[in-house]
């Protein structure tokens, strides 16, 4: 039956030449014809061009980035993009580039604190909103607002809030005689915190949404059983709810961590990496190297390092999820 079906699928009738084909006997099949006539080969023929196209579109720029990182490519120096005489020069130079090393440290702190705060806020608010009341149901939508705003709008909102000459917060503090409160974005002690606050506000709804989805899959029976056993609300949360959504938490944290490496509009609008280099994250440093100084090759090398770090962290996190599943 299967063979017949294959014969039919490959027959000229199916390809639109049925009348003539029906009148003439089928010629004997060549080996190539047999291969091309199979379902598997047909499927491959149909999908391989799309797969190649997708590969080119997704891996092409990454590959170009990798190749560019092996050159001293500089837009002001024609031919520098083809100079492979010192393929690892950019990577070797990174070791003595204090600003790059500083950017890694800034990036690590920004990622750690913003992801931690987003997870904590997302979890806390999701647990509250999971209580089934009409008010909380409506509030879910309100809490999504920061996430759906265009990132540049979020940056402008925080720019206004942090700027002493325009901020309603500073105006309010001024009413109580607090005129000398330092501007957060220009203070070396507070600038990174200012970015972390903005980043957390923008993205906690994402973790909240994921956790809410996880909570909705928790069977009611497990709550019931815990309550019958006399567990308190805190115990239920700790012993029943959190273990159930732990994988969701890990996945949400991975997503947010990867995204935190891409933080850009807030830094660009609020601090431009300053004061000094206090908020100069690796991503922003890479941007400056490429677009302000034209060091395309060096900037590409930085992004390769950044990509490697993100990939390694993601693999570790995914292994963790897998390990928890098999362990559980």
């Amino acid at each position, binding site marked *: 039956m299967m063979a017949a079906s294959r014969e039919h699928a490959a027959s000229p009738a199916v390809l639109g030449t049925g009348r003539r084909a029906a009148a003439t006997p089928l010629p004997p099949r060549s080996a190539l014809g047999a291969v091309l006539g199979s379902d598997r080969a047909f499927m491959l023929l149909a999908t391989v061009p799309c797969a190649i196209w997708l590969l080119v579109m997704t891996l092409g720029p990454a590959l170009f980035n990798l190749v560019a990182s092996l050159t001293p490519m500089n837009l*002001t120096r024609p031919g520098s993009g083809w100079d492979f005489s010192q393929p690892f020069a950019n990577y070797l130079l990174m070791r003595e580039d204090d600003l790059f090393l500083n950017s890694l440290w800034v990036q690590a702190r920004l990622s750690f604190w913003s992801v931690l705060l987003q997870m904590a806020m997302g979890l806390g608010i999701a647990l509250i909103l999971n209580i089934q009341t009409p008010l909380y149901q409506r509030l879910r939508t309100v809490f999504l607002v920061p996430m759906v705003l265009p990132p540049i709008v979020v940056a402008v909102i925080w720019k206004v809030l942090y700027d002493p*000459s325009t901020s309603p917060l500073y105006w309010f503090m001024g009413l109580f005689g607090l005129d000398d409160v330092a501007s957060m974005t*220009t203070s070396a002690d507070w600038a990174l915190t200012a970015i972390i606050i903005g980043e957390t506000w923008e993205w906690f709804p994402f973790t909240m949404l994921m956790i809410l989805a996880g909570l909705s899959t928790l069977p009611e029976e497990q709550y019931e059983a815990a309550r019958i056993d006399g567990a308190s609300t805190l115990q239920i949360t700790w012993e029943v709810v959190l273990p159930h959504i732990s994988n969701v938490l890990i996945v949400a944290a991975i997503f947010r961590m990867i995204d935190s490496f891409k933080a850009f509009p807030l830094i660009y609008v609020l601090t431009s990496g300053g004061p*000094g280099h206090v908020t100069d994250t690796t991503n922003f440093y890479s941007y400056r190297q490429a*677009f*302000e100084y*034209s*060091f395309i090759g*060096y900037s590409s090398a930085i992004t390769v390092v950044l990509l490697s770090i993100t990939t390694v962290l993601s693999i570790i996190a995914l292994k963790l999820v897998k390990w928890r599943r098999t362990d559980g």
Partner: protein
Amino acid sequence: MHPTDSSSSRLAPSRRRFLTTAGAGTAAILAPGFLHAKGRFDGTTINASMFSHGFVNLLRPMLGQFKDETGITVNLVDKAFPIYNQQTDLELATGGTSLDVISISFIYTARWIGTGWMEPLDPFLNNAEATPADWGRNDFVEALQKYGRSADGKITYGIPWEAGVWLMAAGRGDLMDKAGLANGGLPASFDELRENCRKLKALDASVAPFINDTTHHANYPIYLQGLGGQVFKNAPDNLTPLLNSPQAAAAAEIYAGLLRDMGPQGVLSMRTDQVAGLLRGGQTHYWHYALPWLVNAAKGDSAIARTVRFGEVPAGPSGKFPSVVTHSLGIPKYSRKKGAAWEFIRWAMSPKVQRHMAVEQGYAATTRTSILRDPAFVKNMTINGTNVAGLVEKTLAGSEKKDYMNYRIVSVFPIIGGHINSAIQKIASGQASGAEAMAKAQSDILVDFKKNQIKTDA
């Protein structure tokens, strides 16, 4: 007939006559010399890109007039300065053909012209049909025009449209008089500036004595050169940075100290328009910056319109070194409509259009000598008794004589500028001393120079 109808009927022809006369006058101002282009370029559309500036705002409404005269439609796009520079840099570097006219940013002069990305304008300038003799090629201030030429000064690539001359505005003359400051509050030296700031702060702490935006790389050199320091050993021939010198550290302490101790909260992240807003609102005293910003902040319904005073920037022991920058209109090498592009530049920078902008519409940063000395312009630019046009001419003459702005037009200046900005921020935010911050800037610059394979003595 109702009496009012009668009066309005008497007024109507008069108003019509006025509008007709005004329209004809404007046309007469703008038209001669350009009519020949009509037909040659009819139906042509060119793309012009500049950074956001009052010049663009004044030019844009006149583009219809230009189209009527030449048949050329101009898509004039403006963007914020850093965005403009990045996009244009990328467009030029990649040989893009989408732009026909651009503004050659001062700090990118060597890079865009020196790399061969701009079209020489001499074939147009030397062609009597493309450029009539009365266009006044030599009318542009030489101190500005020279930055639109090749390094050897032989080929012209840009026509200067902004005289970005650094002056000092002292916004609250009323408080300066109250504080008993000498010379009307306009400081002659760095020490006097600091002393005046201290007195003004003591008098009224709600008005910030000193302010500036984030372009420290344009303001810090005033102090650096004033103390006898240099950015480079000998720009453009020897680009060894000298930011670890004692003068560089001392200058950074003075300038960053003024921002830290005398600036308003958040001064380190203030954009130019924010600073202008504070000066305009009378919330700050001293701002040394490019002329058009200062004049605009003092005019119209400005709170400081009657109290502002203008002077030169203060001097250090080695003299006075006000920044002088200019941006020029030029044609990218890969433009496919160079003829029409030149037609636009010639029209925009013509004596009549420029005079119209400067005298009728108040554009302060004119680049033509004849307009700088025009009595009507001088009258416009006399603010609270000070002939600001005269100050501009004096500053331009000084810059031409001393020739101290070369540090700013080398191709690596964007790198230097970025590190100067960071160093000043570090000092002003208390992260480092002047010596530490400038020494770090020096070493960071050398690392960046390695990436760019720039040879230095270090």
